[in-house]
């Protein structure tokens, strides 16, 4: 499967994502420059983590208007698969490809930690390789990860199964301690209504090798997408 990973000025995890895809999963992956409008035939676009445009104004607010985003938005509207990780999630929300917004962590601190998320819906192309309710250990590193959306939207999203990942404690329960950033309904990852766009704050690309401290639970999400493309 061919993947396109977008590089914005200030992207950090673009190369790690390409490494995970190419070296660990044997995928075809190319870097896409933010000033280009070509998606180079990629079947899945990843907006990586980082601090695009220095997080100025609001996280993702300026990246959302970069030339490549025109093509990404069109690609998504035509049903193309797009994944936003961390800053990429913020950009997708700012671009209105995903509902809601990401705001300052409840603690006001930048958090770098390993968290547990629960797969709330495994009937999606992003979670197919996981079991319903499966717990995944993934790293997070963000200052603005507190997910907010109007209550009416949250209710609809829950009904449609768009809440794909939720922060839980190590035993799998939804508790205050399990919610690292104060996200509404402990939301860690959401899909759009059509289930072709997915955004999440945790970093699956940093959890692809068992020998490293982050483990390899991130593989489940990538494998789901790869499996869905076959």
């Amino acid at each position, binding site marked *: 499967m061919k993947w396109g990973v977008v590089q914005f000025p200030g992207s950090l995890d673009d190369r790690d994502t390409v490494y995970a895809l190419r070296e660990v999963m044997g995928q075809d992956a190319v870097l896409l420059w933010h000033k280009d409008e070509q998606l180079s035939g990629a079947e899945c676009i990843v907006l990586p983590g980082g601090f695009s445009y220095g997080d100025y*104004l*609001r996280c993702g*607010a*300026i990246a959302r*208007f970069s030339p490549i985003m025109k093509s990404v938005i069109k690609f998504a509207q035509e049903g193309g698969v797009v994944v936003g990780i961390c800053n990429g999630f913020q950009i997708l929300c*700012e671009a209105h490809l995903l509902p*809601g*917004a990401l*705001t*300052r*962590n*409840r*603690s*006001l601190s930048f958090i770098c930690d390993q968290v547990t998320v629960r797969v709330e819906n495994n009937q999606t192309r992003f979670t197919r390789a996981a079991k319903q309710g499966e717990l995944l250990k993934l790293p997070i590193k963000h200052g603005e990860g*507190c997910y*907010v*959306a*109007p209550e009416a939207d949250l209710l609809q999203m829950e009904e449609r199964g768009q809440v794909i990942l939720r922060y839980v404690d190590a035993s799998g329960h939804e508790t205050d301690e399990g919610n690292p950033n*104060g996200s509404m309904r402990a939301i860690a990852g959401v899909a759009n209504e059509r289930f072709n766009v997915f955004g999440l704050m945790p970093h699956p690309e940093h959890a692809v090798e068992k020998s490293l401290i982050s483990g390899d639970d991130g593989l489940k999400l990538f494998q789901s997408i790869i499996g869905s493309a076959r």
Partner: protein
Amino acid sequence: MIVKVFVSPRKGILDPQGRAAEGALKSLGFGTVGSVHVGRYIVLEIDAVSRGAAEDEARKMCDQLLVNPLIEDYRFEVEGG
């Protein structure tokens, strides 16, 4: 023309910065302080023929880029014109 835009966290949205400032003020002994909200202040220099045109332009800028209506409210003041 100068347009001053005041952006504040939307009512009902968690404002941890405001809360932190509020707590700090109270602990400094400012018993008079109620709630505190921390927002953003943007100054726009706009080339417009009239006050109304500057307002229209500023509103468009806010709606398209400067403000996210899901989490923020705004108001602005036009100077000169």
